[in-house]
């Protein structure tokens, strides 16, 4: 038996199966649920490590199942997919720990963790998809699996947020479906190929290809929250904190951004897209979204909403990096996939901690919180600095490569965008840090809970600390062989230099 042909499938199943079992578990079997969750996460981590090692050595991992007589479901591990798979696997483990702490004692946990696992399954599937139809399959599955998480609380606001979310994503899904069928009809294949599979196509199809590109990017842009398709994201903040964390850092938004990378690299190919002239508009949209998101974030008092608009802005770095269409910018964009994930998840964990421990939901309530919860706020600070792009946190690396890449590609205007965005980031993060650390502590918090001697529960405290450290490490240890930056370089090399 050829194990290599099944590992990608196992990776998907390693979260699918626990998820399905968890659905059947009675509410009170906390131990079993935790065990299943963590076992799945650890197995997935091991499998992914194996694949990373293998791919590093040039092995080939591919699962192929017949879907239609002439169309297969393909799961394939390449550098780009593994990049994203590794991110989601690690963050799933961390988030699971966090969610276990966060949801302790609240109702419907079996359902929650079931869909949580499905969500990760879909993300991993999106990452490993070897052709557009497989990608579409998992992309839609992601929509379906996240919906119950968003409406989890069962309030009317949650239901409405869920409706909004669906209105956007179903519409986006339909656009992708249309683009995919059309593409299939033109080319007869949907297989992801490095540098695209369209360069040989008859030029008479170019107009059609432009529309297909627009369809696909618009469809993906919904999840990636590209302006003006970002409307669902701030509303989706009604979901529990671990969900927001997962949605923003790993699952939904990233799946969209990752999809954009996929479409440009492996469907159209960077050069071909640049020749078609479709990357420049995308770069403009991304740039606009960066500024727009930051501006909106500036005026949010609700902490999670501020973070949400920050996500709108930050994720577009990825699209921007890819759309600049140069090797160095690519490194910047792709590496931001991981960096933004690490930093943003830290921030959301911290926001969740504040809400859970002290009942703080608003920026204006954060005065002096640094003294009450020093560890949480330390992690928050690292994340926030990273977002601003201050060295040595990971965000700096991304912005550096983006800037250099833009110069190299002759798109100097991008620098202005980056600078403007960084300034805005400062404007909406630094006041938070200032009031948290330096303003006086109020007499009472909105709704305080005590967790023994620590500032909050262990399960809530550890995850942000770990992710914050990882964000730091990603910025400091860029030279190590498996660092995100090195891996991003491999991806860029494959896209630009390999024969």
């Amino acid at each position, binding site marked *: 038996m050829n194990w290599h042909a099944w590992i990608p499938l196992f990776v998907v199943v390693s979260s699918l199966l626990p998820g399905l079992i968890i659905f059947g578990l009675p509410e009170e079997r906390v131990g079993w649920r935790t065990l299943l969750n963590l076992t799945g996460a650890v197995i997935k981590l091991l499998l992914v490590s194996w694949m990373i090692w293998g791919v590093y050595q040039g092995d080939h991992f591919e699962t192929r199942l017949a879907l239609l007589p002439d169309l297969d479901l393909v799961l394939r591990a390449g550098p780009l997919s593994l990049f994203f798979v590794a991110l989601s696997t690690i963050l799933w483990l961390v988030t699971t720990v966090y969610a276990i702490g966060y949801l302790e004692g609240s109702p419907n946990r079996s359902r929650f963790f079931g869909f949580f696992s499905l969500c990760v399954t879909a993300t991993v599937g999106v990452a490993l998809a070897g052709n557009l139809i497989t990608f579409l399959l998992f992309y839609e599955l992601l929509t379906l699996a996240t919906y119950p998480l968003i*409406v989890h609380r069962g309030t009317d606001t949650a239901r409405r947020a869920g409706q909004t979310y669906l209105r956007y994503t179903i519409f986006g899904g339909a656009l992708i479906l*249309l683009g995919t069928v059309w593409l299939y009809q033109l080319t007869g294949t949907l297989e992801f190929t490095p540098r695209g599979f369209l360069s040989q196509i008859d030029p008479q199809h170019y107009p059609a290809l432009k529309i297909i590109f627009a369809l696909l990017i618009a469809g993906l842009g919904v999840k990636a929250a590209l302006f003006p398709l970002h409307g669902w994201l701030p509303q989706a903040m009604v979901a529990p904190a671990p969900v927001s964390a997962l949605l923003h850092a790993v699952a939904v938004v990233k799946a969209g951004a990752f999809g954009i990378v996929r479409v440009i690299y492996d469907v159209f190919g960077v050069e071909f897209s640049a020749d078609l002239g479709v990357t420049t508009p995308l770069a403009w949209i991304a740039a606009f979204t960066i500024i727009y998101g930051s501006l909106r974030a500036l005026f949010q008092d609700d902490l999670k909403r501020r973070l949400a608009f920050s996500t709108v802005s930050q994720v577009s770095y990825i699209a921007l990096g890819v759309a600049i269409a140069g090797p160095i910018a690519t490194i910047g964009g792709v590496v931001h996939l991981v960096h933004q994930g690490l930093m943003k998840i830290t921030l959301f964990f911290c926001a969740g901690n504040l809400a859970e421990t002290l009942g703080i939901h608003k920026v204006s309530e954060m005065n002096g919180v640094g003294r009450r919860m020093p560890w949480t706020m330390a992690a928050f600070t690292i994340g926030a600095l990273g977002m601003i792009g201050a060295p040595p946190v990971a965000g700096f690396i991304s912005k550096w490569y983006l800037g250099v890449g833009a110069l190299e590609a002759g798109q100097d205007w991008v620098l202005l965008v980056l600078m403007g965005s960084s300034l805005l980031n400062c404007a909406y993060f630094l006041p938070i840090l200032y009031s948290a650390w330096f303003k006086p502590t109020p007499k009472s918090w909105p709704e305080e809970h005590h967790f023994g001697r620590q500032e909050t529960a262990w399960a809530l405290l550890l995850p942000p600390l770990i992710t914050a450290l990882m964000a730091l490490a990603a910025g400091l240890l860029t030279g190590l062989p498996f660092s995100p930056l090195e891996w991003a370089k491999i991806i860029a090399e494959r896209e630009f230099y390999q024969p």
Partner: protein
Amino acid sequence: MGDLLTDAHWGVLLILLPLFGGLCSFLWPSAVKFIGLATVSAVALSVVGLGDQLLATGVYHHAVGGWGAPLGIDLYADGLSLFMLMVTALVGLGVSIYALDYFDQDEARRFWPLWLLLLGGLNALFLSADIFNLYVTLEIVGLAGVGLASLSGGGAALDGAMRYLMATLLGSLCYLLGVALLYHSAGTVDIPLLAERLESTPPVWAALGLICAGLALKTALFPLHFWLPKAHASASAPVSALLSALVVKASFYIFLRLWLEIFSVRTEGVDDLLGALGMAAIIWGSLQALQQTRLKLMIAYSTVSQVGYLFLVFPLAAIGTFSAWSAVAYLVLSHALAKSAMFLVAGNLMHFGGHDRIADLDRAVQRLPITVGAFALAGVSIMGLPPSGGFIGKWLLLNEALNQGRWDLVFVMMIGGVLAAAYIFKVLGFAFTQAPVTHEPKGVPAVMEWSALLLAVAAIVVGFLASPLMLILGIGETVELMGAGQ
């Protein structure tokens, strides 16, 4: 042993078994459930037997009475018939299991004989190669359907059943008049012989019009769908499931069969008309479904819109290929599974809360997770999201529409999918929230929950079985020939 199995007359058995079971269940009312379930299981096994036989030997052909066409009646089974028989057996089995717990003793005594005879009628319909015989089977299906629809007895159910009866009788009569014209044009009622003998003459055109109109009425093609929502929404849950999943498909099958074999080469314009009506049905049905406040009405209108998809194949088939036909077969299959699951879910919810108002579903997700899960899975197939049978059908159809540059069809399909998502998630959303007035819920038997879930899961799983199912569809090459022979 192997010979015995492949030589057995599975096709004939498929007709006689349920009819006999129906008679037995009428004769021994105290054992209806046992007789019913045994019969339905035996029918399912016979379908497997027939499938095995067809895969080994190609088409099944049986001259009833040994006379053969044109004098006698021929039974005929190719891939398409087998496919429909399979759908019927699958849905029938699921609904039968559900019905075990759904009906009380008195209702069960009335339900099972009717349902078994309906099953016999459906099987006979899918196996017939004779248009007059098809008329008789249509009447069996229609009358059994009306009897079933009126089973629950309330004013709304009776009203729905009455509409259904009027529509189905009118449809049958139109069909019969068409049959009469065809008989006198060609001197036979055997489908293959008709295909050889018919020419494009006024009576044949008139017959085409009448048959199309009659069958469209029975299939509830927009704008002839007016009877369907009330009839399907007010019947009891297993009955609604059978009506929406199977009975509507039976008349559509005849439509498809006659089109494939007799009318396809003689029609210009009619196919476009049917396509246009299909498109209108998709949009209108979805919009109506979106406006409904009652779950069962919503599901019924969803049937109206899903029937529209089936008719999109006709404009495509004019220069279409195998994939257009397999698309429609796939849509039939997945819609049958998903829609029956949905109606069973509605039955569970009504049993649970005593009503089916969408806005008052009242945290059904927590209380009936399996049921709501079934609804969601069935919904995935109805919306045509991957991975599901509905997606495969839609994908094939979209592909074909794009191949032929039929952008109108493409857009309608996309809009239809989005609208379907809108009405399905409307339900799911309310299933999470708390109703303003909570009421004491009643427990739902596990059998009812699980049978609904199984049907819904089947609707998803068929999304992964495209290759084997297309192999089955290809038996006898009717479909392929028609695709290529234009």
